[in-house]
Structure formats: structure tokens, C-alpha cells
């Protein structure tokens, strides 16, 4: 089981460690700065910051060394033939930092929808032009009423680093089987209720809030979509709705069990107009049978007048599948060491949490 958790918040990065008497904050870094993405990759930790006035930044800590700023991913000069591009050619936000499956390789998903790759541990970055130059990208829609679409998930098959799936808000599921040389929009079977009826089923119109992929069985994927929960057993090509989810089908986060393809966790909320937990109670929904049924897990989570929302990256599972972390927009942090059956509250009032990420065991 893992011993260390990284928590990115609106006001800094918190390192939480497991002690004999429970989990506690061991270190605070970037206090005051919004942290939008975190990755613990081997001995390295990466943090994406959104400094607002001064742009998105990337930092790395190697082992026990001091944190060091790295060059942030940057878009190439915008060519004249791109005048009709509705999205800026400038980094808006680092939304996901993911390991690439080979030493030194990392992927970064961003707003406004650029995918970047590094092969030197983050020292330098190149825009994936194959995806960025796809004409369909101009149809990508902004996140949460904002102007910029975003790549929220970059999921690399642990056994085949050439096989990548992207979750895009809002543009469906994109796939590459050649390390990003070519891309295809692959998702069939989802629907988007807030689109005009004739476009509700368009693959590119799907509001994929979060994608998850079973590490041991990468064909098994889960999607927390704006309109509900979907499941794919063919690497994201075809999806069917998981209607057994409860207490509600809206939400942002999903994580997949690293070994058991039938197990996944969600954090349901009341959709659209309110975006709060159902009945003011924070719950986690767990399926262990591929979405046929769900248990609603409440033990240790606030059940009265709790209005904590959990964003896309606010739920994490460790490599064992036993340890989970849940971080909310109200700064609540809960950790489970028994697969979600019970949760312990961190005794702190953190800033709004955008991302929780376990270190490797």
C-alpha cells in the first residue's frame, strides 16, 4: 500500500504521508499558487501551476532535491493559415501529466486542447502536431462554458506505450496506436443531452468528464460523462450506458481498479444547475461487477449539509487498489485503506482541491 499522497489545490501543493496514527501533512509547497496537475513518477514529482497573470508553469522535484522550474509546454508560432482557429495557440492550463510508459517519456494534456510530449523527463516539450492539426479540432467545445477545450485524461497502455486514449472536454475519446503519429475519434454509443437532438450522438459532441482504464486489462475503460456513466470493453471504441449508478448519474471523477477490470469508483452529484452532492451527503459509488450494480459508500464521509463537489482529478486509487483518496472543492480530504468501505478525514481545512495523486508504493 502506498505511503504518500500529493494534493494539488487552489492555493498550493500538499504532501500527505501515512504515519502510525494516520495520514498527515508533511510538506506544503507553492503556497498561494493554483496547482492544476500532479504526477509522482518514480523518484520525480511534477506539478503544473496556473499562475493566472503569469501563465501556466511546470515544476519538478527529483528525489530529495529542491523543486526546479522546467520549461512549460509551448505552442509553436501560429501560422497564417490558422486564422480561423477558434482556440488560442498558447498554453492555458496544464490539466494532466502522465507517464509515457518508457523511461523519460511524459505526456501533458492541456487547455486549449494541445497534447505535449517529452522524452527527457520534462526538460523539453513538443506539441503533438498530428492531433493539433486535425481539422475536427476546430469543433472542440470549451469546458464548463469556458472558451477553451481541454484534454483531461491521457491514458497509456502500461504494456504498450504506443497505445494511447485521450479524454477531451468536449470532444469525445481520441485514440492513437502509433505513439501519437495518427489519431482517430473512436467513441460510439455515448449521447449528449444538452446538444441539439440531431447531434446528441455525434462522437465529437460527447462531454467526457473523466476517463479511466484498468492497468491490467487496458481494454476495460470507464467514462464519467456529463450525462451519465459509460463503459467500454474494447479500448474505448464502443460504449454502453451504466444505468445502475446511484444515487445520481452526474459527476466528474472516476478511477478504475488497477487489476480488477470489473471494479471502479465514482463520486455522483446532482447535475447541471446545482452541482452538489445528492441530499447534501458525500458518497462514493463502487461497482465490482462491471457496472451491473453499485454500492453507495458513506462510512466516514460527511452525511449532513455537505456541499463538497469532487472534480475530475479529485479521486485517486493507488497501485494496490485498496487505498483511495477523495479531495473536494470545499477542501475536504478523505482517505480509505479498504477499497472505499470506510474513510478517514484529514484533520485540516485545505484550499479547494483540484487533484489528488498517490506516489508509487
Amino acid at each position, binding site marked *: 500500500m502506498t505511503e504518500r499522497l500529493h494534493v494539488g489545490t487552489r492555493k498550493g501543493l500538499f504532501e500527505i504521508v501515512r504515519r502510525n496514527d494516520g495520514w498527515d501533512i508533511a510538506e506544503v509547497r507553492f503556497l498561494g499558487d493554483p496547482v492544476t496537475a500532479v504526477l509522482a513518477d518514480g523518484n520525480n514529482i511534477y506539478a503544473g501551476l496556473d*499562475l*493566472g*497573470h*503569469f*501563465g501556466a*508553469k511546470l515544476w519538478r522535484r527529483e528525489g530529495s532535491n529542491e523543486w526546479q*522550474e522546467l*520549461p*512549460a509546454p*509551448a*505552442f509553436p*508560432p*501560429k501560422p497564417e493559415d490558422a486564422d480561423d482557429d477558434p482556440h*488560442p*495557440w*498558447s*498554453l492555458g492550463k496544464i490539466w494532466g501529466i502522465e507517464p509515457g510508459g518508457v523511461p523519460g517519456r511524459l505526456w501533458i494534456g492541456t487547455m486549449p486542447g494541445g497534447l505535449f510530449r517529452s522524452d527527457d523527463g520534462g526538460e523539453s516539450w513538443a506539441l503533438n502536431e498530428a492531433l493539433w492539426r486535425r481539422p475536427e479540432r476546430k469543433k472542440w467545445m470549451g469546458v464548463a462554458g469556458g472558451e477553451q477545450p481541454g484534454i483531461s485524461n491521457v491514458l497509456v497502455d502500461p504494456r504498450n506505450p504506443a497505445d494511447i486514449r485521450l479524454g477531451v472536454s468536449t470532444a469525445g475519446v481520441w485514440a492513437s496506436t502509433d505513439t501519437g503519429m495518427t489519431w482517430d475519434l473512436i467513441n460510439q454509443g455515448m449521447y449528449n443531452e444538452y446538444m441539439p437532438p440531431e447531434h446528441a450522438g455525434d462522437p465529437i459532441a460527447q462531454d467526457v468528464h473523466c476517463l479511466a482504464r484498468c492497468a491490467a486489462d487496458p481494454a476495460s475503460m470507464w467514462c464519467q460523462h456529463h450525462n451519465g456513466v459509460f463503459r467500454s470493453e474494447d479500448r474505448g471504441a464502443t460504449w454502453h450506458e451504466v444505468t445502475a449508478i446511484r444515487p445520481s448519474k452526474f459527476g466528474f471523477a472516476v478511477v478504475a481498479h488497477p487489476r480488477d477490470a470489473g471494479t471502479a469508483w465514482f463520486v455522483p452529484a446532482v447535475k447541471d444547475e446545482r452541482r452538489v452532492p445528492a441530499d447534501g451527503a458525500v458518497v462514493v459509488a463502487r461497482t465490482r461487477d462491471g457496472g451491473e450494480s453499485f454500492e453507495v459508500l458513506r462510512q466516514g464521509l460527511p452525511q449532513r449539509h455537505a456541499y463538497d463537489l469532487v472534480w475530475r482529478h479529485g479521486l485517486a486509487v493507488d497501485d494496490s487498489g485498496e487505498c483511495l483518496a477523495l479531495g473536494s472543492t470545499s477542501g475536504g480530504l478523505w482517505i480509505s485503506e479498504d477499497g472505499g468501505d470506510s474513510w478517514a478525514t484529514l484533520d485540516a481545512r485545505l484550499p479547494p482541491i483540484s487533484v489528488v495523486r498517490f506516489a508509487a508504493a
Partner: protein
Amino acid sequence: MPTVAFTSALQRFMPVPPTSVEGATVRAALNVVFASRPALRGYVLDDQGVLRRHVNVFINGELVRDRVHLSDAVARDDEIYVFQALTGG
């Protein structure tokens, strides 16, 4: 030579003392500073070299007109200030 000074908000991320530089335009003057401190460029300009939306540049207290090309002329004794536009909470 014109002087370039930066908001104290930037000093939190890196030391940027006032500097006297050669340059006939805002762009040219800033480029001299960025050449000696490459990481600073991304704090002031976006990926296309345009002034970030929440950063302002003044010449002797007057807001520059050209935020895209930074072509406003600067004279030998001018003072260029790079400020943040305060927002957020």
C-alpha cells in the same frame, strides 16, 4: 539607455532587478532582459509573444498601445514598467 523594471509580484518567482538596456522599442528592450533570463519571457508574454492578458506595460507611466507586437518606441531616458493587472481572490 531605457530602464526596464518589473512588478514585485514577479520577484516571488525569480529575481528581476531594474535593468538598463539597449532597445528602440518595448519588444527590443524586453528581449534584452529575456536573453539574460529566458524563464522570465513566459511570465510576461504568451506562447505567441503577445503580452499576457493580465500583464500591463507602461512607458513613463503611460500604458503601451501595441500589446501584440510591442512596437511602442522608447527613448534613451524612458522607464519601462512591467506590472500585473490585479484580479482574483
